[in-house]
């Protein structure tokens, strides 16, 4: 039986490792920039998941390393066996109930985030229709946005701080409309229209990526979303989506 001191020292080491792990999970640059309110919620969820996961991983590794250190076979033990411990009901109940409670807590929290991310915000909301086809995205701005004739463009412009409801379709096979800076994606499925809602909150240009294998051109089926000030967006719409070189 290892001494209380070595167990305590190992416990302290595990706590330090956990603290370092959690600090690292904040220090590492995991994500692209946050450019939507949804991105902030999802990143917070990610950090909570990391905080919940790191102690569990550290626990597993600590027990393994401690066992390797203390219980490895020493000379003279070649023919010996360990103590015949068959189980411990209390411990087994504990490691069933505690993870179950933790997991239910985390999944409940994820539903709160999901609800926040998908809820229609109070302010103005525009609709942009997205069409995927091998191997390009096109964007239609309906009359509700243009105030006149609808137009379509290969450019995606969005007004900053306004909610946008993407209505996504496909002309051929399944694509996935992914905007990593928004942390949002959904498939473009032939025959149905899918949706998601984003509120961009950072001016800039970000990649749009097809994230579902759609054929030989899949790798290059990329586009760009330009989040611009509302006034600039109005001007762009009035010009009928004329291609603009500068962004920002």
């Amino acid at each position, binding site marked *: 039986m290892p001494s209380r001191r070595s167990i305590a020292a190992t416990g302290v080491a595990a706590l330090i490792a956990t603290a370092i792990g959690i600090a690292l999970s904040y220090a590492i640059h*995991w994500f692209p920039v946050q450019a939507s309110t949804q991105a902030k919620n999802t990143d917070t969820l990610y950090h909570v998941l990391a905080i919940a996961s790191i102690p569990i991983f550290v626990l597993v590794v600590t027990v393994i390393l401690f066992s390797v250190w203390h219980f490895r076979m020493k000379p003279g033990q070649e023919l010996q066996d360990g103590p015949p411990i*068959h189980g411990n009901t209390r411990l087994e109940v504990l490691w069933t109930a505690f993870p179950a409670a933790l997991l239910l807590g985390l999944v409940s929290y*994820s*539903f709160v985030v999901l609800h926040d991310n998908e809820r229609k915000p109070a302010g103005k909301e525009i609709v942009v229709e997205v069409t995927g086809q091998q191997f390009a995205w096109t964007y239609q701005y309906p009359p509700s946005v243009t105030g006149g004739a609808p137009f379509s463009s290969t450019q995606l412009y969005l007004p900053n701080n306004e909610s946008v409801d993407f209505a996504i379709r496909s002309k051929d*096979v399944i694509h996935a409309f992914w905007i990593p800076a928004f942390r949002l994606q959904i498939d473009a*499925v032939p025959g149905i229209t899918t949706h998601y809602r984003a509120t961009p909150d950072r001016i800039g240009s970000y990649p749009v990526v097809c*994230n579902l294998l759609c054929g030989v051109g899949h790798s290059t089926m990329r586009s760009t979303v330009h989040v611009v000030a509302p006034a600039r967006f109005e001007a762009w719409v009035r010009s009928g989506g004329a291609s603009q070189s500068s962004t920002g």
Partner: protein
Amino acid sequence: MRTTLAKLRAPGLYRAGLGFAIGIAFATAITWVVRSSTGHATFHHYLSGDAILTVSLIASPIFFLVGLGGFDYWLYWAAGRPTRPEDHSSHGAHSWKDYFRINTDHKVIGIQYTVTAFFFLLVGGLLAMLMRAQLAQPGAQFVDANTYNGLFSVHASLLIFLFVIPVFAGLANYVLPLMIGAPDMAFPRLNALSYWLLPLAGLMMLSSFLAPGGAFADGWTAYTPLSIDAPIGQDFFSIGVQLAGASSIMTALNFLVTIITMRAPGMSFFRMPLLVWANFATSLLVVIATPFIAASQFFVLLDHALGFNFFNAGKGGDVLMYQHVFWFYSHPAVYIMMLPGFGIISEVIAVKARKPIFGYRMMAFSLLAIVALGFTVWAHHMFTSGMASWIRIPMAITTAIIAVPTGIKIFSWLATLWRGILHLDTPMLFALGFLTTFTLGGISGVMLAMVPFDIHVSASYFIVAHIHYVLFGGSLMTIFAGVYYWFPKMTGRTFDERLGKWHFWTTFVFFNLTFAPMHILGLEGMPRRVATYASKFADLNLFISIASFALGLSTLIFVYNIVTSWRGGPRAAANPWRGLTLEWQVSSPPPIFNFDRVPTVVGGPYEYGVPGAVHGIFAPAPVPATVGGGAPVTTGGGVHAPSE
């Protein structure tokens, strides 16, 4: 010397080759007859290369198996001719040639399975190396996009259907009958047939690279409608999966009947080793789930070859239905590829820590819990598919909860280590390595259950990282542990321990260097299944490619060790690890009919440290074992009573 004609008439590879040729002729004839007898516009050519090829893919494997002799017994019986009673003369393997014919000995079949599976591991790994060569730089032109899409599709298909699933079936084929004290599997002929379907399935998938238009190139997931419009290579997958799936189902039925009906006297369910429990649970999964992927690929085949429009939205088809049917198999498949590994780890850790498995009953029950829950989570692969959004809620809850039984297993293994006497040799190192890497794969799996997070990373490189932590860091680590652990039993030889340790450390280090950075790529926004990528991902990808080449090389240590040890390693003792389970109580390799005296099980399988405990005893006087109504078996020696 037999004449060529006699060779062509006797069951074996020559007649199988003849059958294969007849299969192609049959396919050509039936295509011509059907096309010329109908005036339908679709059939405006009497002969169509595509049609003949597709029909050949179905017909020639069946004719091959008939030629090989896989159906001889049943055909004789069906034709009312005298069947040839099994005289067991084909049991055992006396030369390497015996592995290339129909053989009903579970030990021969176990080795056929395992070696075939490892062949496909090497081929699949080689395809991965080609992929990493392409991905070393953005915009590289090592292969074109279509070939690249074929590479990852065939890579995944081979490693799932021809490596992980069958290698577990192969290891269990060898050791499971021994562990329960049975002379063989319940249905030896079915066992032989289920093995021979595998090389056919694998070669079919691999040969799709030669098909016009290239290999199937829409991933192992074959999502419609992309797969419907694909070139003929798609049929090599649709039909190859039928063969591999049929093999899986036959073996699972065989395991279930063997476990239920052929346990030695005294071996109650709760005296079974956990490897047996694990294969019992896995077989339940296979029997219930595998028909769903067979169906999904039948639908694709009918859509692809005959225009049935099951999945054509423009013709009333339902695109998302494909994904539901596909994942109804393919989520449980994750557990089909993991539970047998859990069984292996339980065997290795109990023996190498010299302690009883902590919480044996909970270990068995958690396997059954995973089987039940495993059927309730499939749509977590579809959180971003556009399916009805409410389905995400229950599926996220079940996905989170299925981590509980898995957690029970991990904690129980840790508790088994506690205060044991740890033999840190190669099998144990792989078991401990498995515990760490699989825990990481489990954690990223729980993260993916969280819908908003999954919405971001679904189908990204984060998924590639997760799946490889589960299937490489999980399954493959357990497979290596199992192969080293039973190598002395299966070959009668001892492997080189020093090389084994080298293999472990190189695999463990380069595995993590290869796959850990992929998490970051996915979070940063790199999609999977791309032949090129944005330049900001270049540095990490180059790093990953270099690490993956080292990982590939580490496998050569394994191959070298296994090949040289098998050919000329030191003779292995019957029970080198001092294990209590029955397979260690017979010689290495075991006698032809496993047990010269029928064992009686008198206690649990892991009673290490209990003074005087034994799992099985052998009757004091030799009892002639009889197999299937044949003659009494008398083979000399090889029985070692447990010495405690």
